């Protein structure tokens, strides 16, 4: 189990919410569920008569001995076969209906989650880890649906069997039944108690396992640091401590959970013995038949299971509610605000972009962008420079409407972008990020990600334009080569080139680029730089620049510091001004 598993083992915070949402979500399936419950009840009832009929067979044999009445016995036997066969058929039908329901329910839940991911504001993902969301999609959905189908089947079966068996027992012998009714529930109460303990230690075990797993992850990831600082001893002893703790918690959890077996056993045997002895006495004084005792013994053994199962439902319901809470909590997160109605459009784009007094903060407390204003003429190449944390990336996020400004406006060709549909705003920009995300698929599929109907010649033209044609053709299957985020058949730099080509296939009127800083070899670096220059030519473009050449070629340099533009102009004028930009430049590029 990964580091995220431990969260789902936690307690339910709001059971009412979890229960309400869960029952609401299974509403569309209520007909199938009811049907399945009815089938379960039917199957349980049909199964009830087998021991009684077998007992009858014995009685008939004894009473007719030595001229055994085979006719009557075989008719009983045939009834038994019919009964248990049809019970089994109903049982199968019940299980199958439930399996279909739970499969579809699972499917729907997953779809709801993936939809939700697309509708949540980007800011949600700043505060929540991918792993956590992923584990809701996988672990929690799994837990919810399995425990749901298990509960429905178990509860309906158990209740029916319980009532049925009790009735049957009473019809055979009232005093014997009373013995069974006293002994068995006591065992269930005791077992339930033990199960509670077991549950407590299981939680402790899960929590310790979580701690241990993260220790392992951390130490393996930082192995060279541990080695080069001679930290192995300390790491081993800290690991050993948690490992010991885990072994002790596991032992306790296992002991308590396996304890229920001998305990039930004692009680079952006690009941069994009591019934043998008392049954024997009743048969001797003729108040009961041998077949009756035989049947009764079988019923007692059937009496145990449903009670234990009902007792264990509390645990299952706990985990069902915990999973339900995590899933529906996610599904009820506030979504992105709907697009402005009626949305405006820009009929033919010129590419003039203006920021008017834009202010923004991620958390509503610490302002990241403060009163940011600038007007960019069509076709301008803008380079944004500044130290880490100056707010460069945030400007791009606002421009793409990944986030909305707290105040102020961003205006394109005179139209405020908040009044344009998000999709339409994003259509205006081609975006190349540092993080070179490619989905797993072929090169071709990845390149046409921005324009599905692009022809192969469009794709090839874009590839050629972005200097990646030769690289693609050198791949084992050319444009049909499979690549993914973490595939190693293309280097980091080549991935960056692919993302540039991907943006070019869409042929957007404006561009947003975040230059990569590292891990690119020099030849590829050169190619990237060249294609950057080519694609920005004549387009309004915003580049978060790290390369001197990009900065120097820019028409307009915005120097940012603490969320504000502190200087703007081109390279020469800014150097002459001898301000923050000059300081930045000199510390890095100039001769000493």
């Amino acid at each position, binding site marked *: 189990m990964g580091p995220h598993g431990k969260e789902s083992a936690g307690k339910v915070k709001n059971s009412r919410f979890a229960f309400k949402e869960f029952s609401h979500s299974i509403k569309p399936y209520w007909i199938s569920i009811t049907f399945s419950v009815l089938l379960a009840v039917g199957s349980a009832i049909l199964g009830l008569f087998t021991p009684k009929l077998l007992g009858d067979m014995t009685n008939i044999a004894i009473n007719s001995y030595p001229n055994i009445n085979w006719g009557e016995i075989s008719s009983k036997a045939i009834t*038994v076969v019919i009964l*248990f066969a049809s019970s*089994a058929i109903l049982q199968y039908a019940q299980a199958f209906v439930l399996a279909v329901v739970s499969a579809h329910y699972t499917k729907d839940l997953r779809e709801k989650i993936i939809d939700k991911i697309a509708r949540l504001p980007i800011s949600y993902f700043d505060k929540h880890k991918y792993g956590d*969301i992923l584990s809701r999609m996988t672990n929690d959905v799994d837990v919810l649906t399995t425990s749901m189908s298990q509960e429905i089947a178990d509860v309906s079966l158990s209740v029916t069997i319980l009532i049925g068996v009790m009735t049957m027992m009473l019809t055979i012998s009232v005093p014997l039944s009373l013995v069974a009714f006293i002994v068995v529930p006591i065992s269930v109460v005791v077992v339930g108690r033990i199960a509670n303990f077991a549950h407590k230690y299981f939680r402790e075990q899960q929590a310790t396992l979580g701690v241990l*797993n993260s220790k392992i992850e951390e130490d393996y990831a930082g192995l060279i640091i541990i080695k080069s600082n001679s930290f192995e001893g300390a790491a081993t002893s800290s690991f050993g401590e948690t490992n010991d703790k885990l072994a002790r918690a596991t032992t306790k959890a296992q002991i308590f959970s396996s304890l229920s077996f001998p305990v039930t056993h004692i009680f079952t045997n006690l009941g069994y013995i009591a019934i043998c002895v008392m049954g024997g006495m009743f048969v001797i004084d003729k108040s009961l038949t041998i077949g009756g005792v035989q049947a009764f013994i079988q019923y007692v053994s059937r009496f145990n299971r449903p009670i234990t199962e009902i007792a264990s439902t509390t645990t299952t319901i706990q985990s069902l509610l915990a999973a339900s809470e995590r899933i529906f909590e996610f599904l009820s997160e506030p979504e992105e605000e709907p697009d402005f109605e009626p949305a405006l459009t820009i009929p033919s784009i010129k590419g003039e972009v203006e920021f008017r007094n834009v202010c923004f903060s991620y958390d509503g407390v610490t302002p990241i962008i403060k009163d940011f204003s600038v007007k960019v003429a069509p076709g301008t190449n803008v380079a944004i420079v500044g130290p880490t944390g100056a707010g460069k990336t945030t400007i791009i996020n606002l421009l793409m409407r990944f986030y909305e400004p707290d105040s102020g406006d961003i205006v394109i060709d005179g139209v405020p972008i908040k009044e344009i549909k998000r999709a339409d705003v994003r259509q205006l920009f081609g975006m190349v990020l540092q993080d070179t995300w490619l989905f797993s698929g072929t090169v071709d599929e990845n390149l046409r990600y921005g324009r599905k109907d692009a022809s192969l010649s469009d794709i090839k033209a874009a590839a050629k334009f972005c200097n990646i044609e030769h690289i693609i053709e050198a791949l084992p299957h050319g444009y049909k080569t499979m690549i993914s985020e973490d595939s190693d058949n293309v280097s980091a730099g080549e991935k960056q080139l692919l993302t540039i080509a991907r943006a070019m296939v869409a042929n957007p009127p404006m561009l947003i680029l975040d230059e990569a800083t590292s891990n690119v070899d020099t030849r590829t670096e050169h190619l990237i730089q060249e294609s950057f220059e080519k694609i920005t030519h004549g387009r309004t473009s915003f580049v978060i620049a790290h390369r001197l050449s990009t900065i120097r070629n820019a028409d307009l340099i915005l120097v940012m510091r603490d969320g504000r533009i502190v200087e703007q102009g081109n390279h020469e004028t800014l150097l002459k001004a001898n301000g923050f930009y000059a300081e930045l430049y000199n510390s890095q590029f100039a001769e000493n």
Partner: protein
Amino acid sequence: MFKLMRFLKPYWWQVIILLLATGGQVYTTLQLPALMADIINNGIVESDMATVWKDGLLMLGLATISALASFISSYFSAKVGAFFSRDIRAAVFQKVLMFNLADIKNYSTASLITRTTNDVNQIQMIVTMMLSMLLRAPLFCVLGLVMAIQTAPEMSWIVAVGIGAVVISVIIIMSLVAPKFKVFQKLVDKVTLITRENLTGLKVIRAFNNESIEKRKFTRTNDELTKLLIFVDRILELQNPLINIIFNGTTLLCSWIGISLLDQNYSYLGNMTAFAEYVTFVMMSFLMLSLFFIMIPRANVSAGRINEILKVAPKIHFPKKTRGVPNKKASVEFRKVSFAYPDAAEKVLDDISFTAEAGKTTAFIGSTGSGKSTLINLVPRFYEATSGEILIDGIDIKEYAKDDLMQKIGLVPQRGVLFSGTVKSNIKFGAPNATDEQVRKAAEIAQADGFITRLPNGYGSHITQGGTNVSGGQKQRLSIARAVCKNPDIFVFDDAFSALDMKTDARLREALKPITSDAVVLIVAQRVSTIKDADQIVVLDKGKMVGKGTHQELLGCCKVYQSIVKSQLSDAEFRKEMHGATR
């Protein structure tokens, strides 16, 4: 799987107790139906109340012993299972700590983590099950069979029929379903993959307005998965009803045959009930066994993966004590060093020689795959040179005790690595005795003091696992502070500055100068600007050293270096640089 059983050795006496207890429990449990048959045959039929009481008390005694034995066996199986897997986990962990980088590359960190966690958990599950069930089931089978045949030899063929039916039905169902499990796992993985992509590619997907396409992709796989799930369930759900039919059928058969045998022997009246119970015991055990054998292959995969790690022999050995007297002044010298991965034809490093002196900076530059990272990882012996020798302070690194060697080196890896704890505990990682003042000083040099003091708890601020609560640049600066705080003779910066912006990079290098005046500094870098001022630059290309000298010297004579510089500067600047070089 069986290779791992050697880990059971320390617990041998507990296993023996466990075995005895299990045997006792099975034996006593199986006596009960026989006694019940006796109650029916000799007590009830003969109307002998004394026999009923005698047998009843005997049953009570046996039941108590059985429960006691069952408790003992549960206790020991839980304990042995838990501690057995604890030992395996510890063994794997310690082995991985001894791994060198070649081993890690071989297995990947992610896979090593799964092996230490998930795989060990799998083994633990199966072993605990095995201890409590696998011992009990065969005993039940054998003893149950013996008892059944003893009770009613004429009916023993029923046992064969029952067992056969159980085994055949399990085999048929599993052989229908098992091949689908692989496909099933693949589809589950695919669903997870698409979800992951939707999360990691969030911005790109939205930037291209491709939400609906992603949705369609997801739905297709999701539908496929659902269909397969329903198909598998359709077969799998047959199991319980089938088993029920078999159990009921066998019981009916017992009654029927028992009644037909009454003519020969009236004691079949009690025996057939006892017999039916024995048959149930035996069939249950077989059911458990067959389910268990289905699980074995899965556990075997895990066991195989664990064994693979455990049998890796450490390739790099350190002497217990450092041999030889080191020079007073720090230095690192490579003499004709080559390196190739085991079984690889191509050399990653080929015949590298240079000397790095104290107070001087030696830089390494070259494109990806040029071998520069591998080169500096040879210094702390994370890789072992295939030929040639490396000397630190005049002594071959193979002569150093591990801790002595590591003590000399302050390493800053490419990716900033932090450990959960506090800012302070992370900086003090390599120098546990450092004072608060030394910690603060190190952070100042690493340009980290500024952001640390702005954190809510300053140096006491919590760092989460993997340092996810600080930014990449901050992580890198803390990891530099950690190396500085150690005050080593040799600094190794493996492309450690690239996550920093240009300005911080420059400031940091300036601040490092005073404290590295007596130390050897080795820097791997991508940016020319980072290493321009180095006293010696080693230019690598495909594992070969193609240039060695200062920035100016290399600009004059080294083609590879020229092209690197050219790609990072504008034409005008490049001309200026070249001019400077020829002047």
